């Protein structure tokens, strides 16, 4: 079935293809990772505290600090 879908250009990368849906999940996660790096750096530059950043991200202050302190 997968083979059929890959060979048929009409159904390639449509929302019907389960592989496409899974790839989209992977890309969403990559998008979130990249935006997090950028947005955290920007928030720090604009003077937000680690706690404010953590609240907006919905994680603990410790988690966000550990993940991002080295990038800045």
């Amino acid at each position, binding site marked *: 079935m997968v083979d059929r879908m890959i060979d048929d250009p009409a159904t390639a990368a449509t929302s019907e293809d389960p592989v496409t849906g899974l790839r989209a999940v992977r*890309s969403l996660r990559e998008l979130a990772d990249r*935006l997090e790096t950028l947005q955290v750096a*920007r928030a720090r530059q604009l003077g937000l505290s680690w706690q404010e950043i953590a609240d907006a991200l919905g994680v603990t202050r410790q988690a966000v600090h550990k993940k991002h302190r080295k990038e800045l």
Partner: protein
Amino acid sequence: MFERFTREARAAVVGAQEEARTRGARQIETTHLLAALLRSSATAGAVTAAGGDVQALVRTPDHGDLDAEALSAVGVDLDAVTAQAEKTLGPGALARSARSPKHLPFAREAKKALELALREAIRLQDRSIESRHLLLAVLRAECSARELLVRHGTDLTALRSTLETPQPRSA
């Protein structure tokens, strides 16, 4: 693993690594291998002969691990996201923020394609692994590069038979 590769095939593998890095990917995918293979006129010629739109294949916007077509299928417009990111976070922000380690690993699909290239060489009774064996391997694997070729008009059967005929200029 690469000792039986011709110089040109080896260059394609190195080129795939470069493609992956430039596009901000975290793994070397078969699509990066395909892009590197298409740098050679022999391979590009074979794809064109099989109806494939090489220009489109090379031009395909690639945001690293961000798959624009897959995102679009779930209702997310990557161009809109990129535009918003550039507005607030500066030009090229999204591509810049991809973390590429020094040595990119081959994705499972790409690894499989490299192995299949050896088998193609054996099957065609060639002593070394050439670029055309790499492309034949891409056609054999169920991988994203094969999907891309089909999406850009390539007749896989025609391409396969062109590649299976040894060509004097191909190294």
